[in-house]
Structures are given as structure tokens and as C-alpha cells.
């Protein structure tokens, strides 16, 4: 099962985990065959938000949520179950300064709208 591990950091901890530590963590995960992809992100002031409403594309600056912690990067991993995903997430270096949100991914199902999938029991 695939899990997306989203790394959240508050701005003062943005550079607290060294790149070397993150590279080592990624290498180890890749060797065990559990890393499917991932990347650190530039800070939120580089973000641009795109929407399409009534056929019109609108582009705005930045994210809107005023959160203490911001999305700083992500790892897509393959894990047997949530326990293994938690174990992997606990070894991601920024876990020591920020938080890692672990989310299972789901398959897209033909014929199902997004709202219906979200409401599924």
C-alpha cells in the first residue's frame, strides 16, 4: 500500500534537518525498495495557486491558510500497513523538529466522482 508522508515545519525550523541527513534517509529507504519518490519544497512564499472557475483560469499568490507549520516536502513510500508507514515516517529527519502527516493513497476509480469517493463508508 502506498502512503504519502507529508513533512510539515514551522518557518524557524525550515533548515533544521541537514540535507545530508535527508539524503542518507532517502538512500536507505530507496535501498529497501520502499521509497517511490519525494522531494523537499521551497518555502510557501514561492507558491502559486491555480483555479479554474467557469472556464476562467485564475492565478493567485501564495497559499491562504495561516498555519504555524507549512508543507516542507514529501516522501511517497510503499508500506505493508500503517504501522510500517509510521515507522518509516519516524525516521524522516525533520520529524524531530516538525511533524509528518501520513496519508494512505487511494486508487482512482472510473465512474466515481471525487465527492462520492470521499463520502464512501
Amino acid at each position, binding site marked *: 500500500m502506498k502512503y504519502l508522508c507529508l513533512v510539515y515545519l514551522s518557518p524557524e525550523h525550515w533548515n533544521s534537518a541537514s540535507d545530508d541527513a535527508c539524503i542518507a534517509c532517502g538512500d536507505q529507504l530507496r535501498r529497501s525498495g520502499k521509497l517511490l519518490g519525494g522531494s523537499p519544497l521551497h518555502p510557501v512564499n514561492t507558491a502559486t495557486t491555480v483555479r479554474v472557475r467557469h472556464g476562467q483560469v485564475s492565478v493567485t499568490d501564495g497559499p491562504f491558510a495561516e498555519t504555524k507549520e507549512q508543507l516542507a516536502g514529501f516522501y511517497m513510500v510503499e508500506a505493508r500497513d*500503517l*504501522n510500517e508507514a509510521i515507522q518509516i515516517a519516524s525516521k524522516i529527519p525533520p520529524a524531530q523538529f516538525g511533524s509528518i502527516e501520513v496519508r494512505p493513497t487511494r486508487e482512482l476509480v472510473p465512474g466515481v466522482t471525487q465527492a462520492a469517493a470521499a463520502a464512501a*463508508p
Partner: protein
Amino acid sequence: MPSADIARVRAEIDALYRRESRRIFATLIRLLGDFERAEEALSDAFRAAMEKWPADGLPQNPVSWLISAGRFKSIDRQRREKRFDHLEDRPDVAETLTDNAPAFDEREGLLEDDRLRLVFTCCHPAIAPDAQVALTLREVCGLATEEIAAAFLTPAPTIAQRIVRAKGKIRDANIPYQVPSRDELPARLDSVLRVVYLVFNEGYSASSGDSATRPDLSGEAIRLGRLLRELIPEPEVQGLLALMLLHESRREARATPDGDLILLDEQDRSRWNRELIEEGAALTRAAFSAQRVGTYSLQAAIAAVHAESPSAAETDWSEIIGLYDLLLRIQPSPIIALNRTVAVAQLRGPQLGLEHLDELLADGALDEYQLAHAARADFCRRLGRNDEARAAYTRAIELTAQGPARRFLERRRAALQA
């Protein structure tokens, strides 16, 4: 079969349902990997027993018969559903079940393991704490949603929603049905012990309502405690079971026939259950013989000092204060500090107790805690400071939702001389 025998078989099936259905359910969850399917399989299995057993007689091992029947009914059901299923890429669950599911084993131990697996699944730290309690009561103890709602003073739809959400998370996030491995156990065991103790406390001292206790809930908690102890011989598991047994031993003596509370020092100690006390005290000693002593073992030790003391006057309060000191070191909490203060007042008089308590109250954390005000009222009463005592009783009564406890405090307030 003569109709008397048919009636006997039906009664036997009823009894099996009451005694064994939660164990069978736990095993079906492991085999089928899904709460809803296991629920359906359980009722299918008992329906099949009702059809077959009156004609064929009881099978040799009814529990494993029911588990196999439930499992095969579920596989049939999934095959039938698949035939009408238009989603082609849906994996064939029935196939994976027949091929890969662990073989059913008739050993008793495995059935117990399944129940424990279910407890750990319901108490997984990735599930919100209030949902852990509701889910455990519903799925492991078999309580109805309405009963859980009544016990926790929460509307039934809210409880139902929590349970549905938690089950959805177990399925979608793929929370495993397993007792965690040794390195994960300490963290996972903590939430299990917490839930079991919460269930017990709700049964031992209901947070609201007209009766002070709900013996069904504490009975379930003790049953879970025994199950945990058999399978995980950790000192804290022994400590928690000991603590519950020692509290439970006093149940009969804690209230008058009218349901009014009787305080510890006024209880008729001959009505305490000796068997439970001996078992609890032995477990406490076993827990203390381990290297690490935890919070449940320490609380059990305090309960054991009370339980083994021949009278209230002979209680070894300095021993109890020493145990509270240790407890405060591992788990600093204003409620434990309050309990220590009550022990100090017993040993060295209400004046010192009041001084300690007022320091604690100045901190503000105990402001909404009725027992802190009840303790203050008691100290003031014993010092003859009646006006202060009356004010403290009034505040404690305002904060008490449980009928018997309110009546007790009102009686005490009324007995104060003007």
C-alpha cells in the same frame, strides 16, 4: 428430534451466543479483515446453527464450527456480490481469502489472541482517544451504541459517528489487526491500558447518572485486564489488573441499600471481597518484583495498603504518602497531588492538609475538580471553620453530576452547625 431436545439445542445456541460471540467475532475479523464482513458472517453463522443443529445435534466443537461456517458464508456472499459487481478492476477478495488467509487453528490460545489483536486495533494510537474507548466497548465488549452513549453522557449519533469514522480509518489507512511487536509494544500498550482503565472507572464510579456504579462496565474491563495479563506478562499489565481487582473488592461496601455513598473510613470491611484482595495484592507484589515500577503498579500498591489494613485507624498513611511521592515523580498531576494531600491530612491533621491543598488550589488546575472542593470542605469542617466548609461544599455540589455523590455532599453541608 423431539421438541424438548430442540428447545434444549436452541437454549444452548443462545448461551453460546452470549458467552462466545465476541471471541468468534474477533477471529472472523482476523480471517476476513473487515468489521462489516465479520459482523455479517457472525449473524450468518448463528443463523446456520439455528437451522442445522436442531436436526443434526451439536457439533463436537461448536465454536470452531461457527467460525468456519461464518467464514465460508462470507466467501459465498462475496462471490455472489462479485457476480453483480460492475467494477471490473475490484480485487477478488474471495480468492485471496481462500488462498492466503492463515489457516484456522482450533487451539484456545489463538482465539484469545484474536480478541487481544482486536483490542490493540481499536486502541491504535492513530485513532482519536475518545473513539478508541467507544470502539473498544462496541467491538470488543459488544456493548450497544446506545449503552456507550449513556455511559459517557454523549448523544448516540455522536458515538455512532465516532465508531464509523474509526472503522473507516482502520480500513482505509490499513491499520493492522495485530498485537504490536516488542519494540512497538510500550507505546501501543499505553493506550490499551488507558482505555481499559477508563472503561473500569466509568463502571466503578459513573461520571453522571443516578447510580454510582455500572458493574457491567467494570466487569468487562477486568475481563480485558485478565486477558491482557495472560498474553502480555508486563509488570504494568499486572499492576492495572491488581488496581482494578482491589477497587472492585470494595464494591459491596461502598453504598447503602438506598444507593448512598459510604466513605472508605466508614465502610464495613467485613464486606470487602477477600478473594479479590488476595489476588490483587499478590499481583501487586509480582509487579513490584520487576525492575521498572509504573503508575498502575504504584496506584495498586496504595489500594493494597488500604485493602490489607484491618481498620481505617490502622492504615499506614506514611507508606501511602511515600507511594504518592513516587507516583508524583513519574506522573506529575494535580489530582495525584490532591490525593497525597488527603493522606497527609490523615497522618498529620487537617491544618497541614488545608495548607497543602490551598497551595494546590492557588495553581488553578483543580478549580473545576469537585473532589478538591469536597476535600477542602472536609478539612474546614474538621477544623471547625464552618462558613468556609459550607462554601466549599456548595462549590463541590455545583460541580457534581452524579446523584449519590451530590446527596452525600448535601447531607454533609446540612449537618454543619450554623
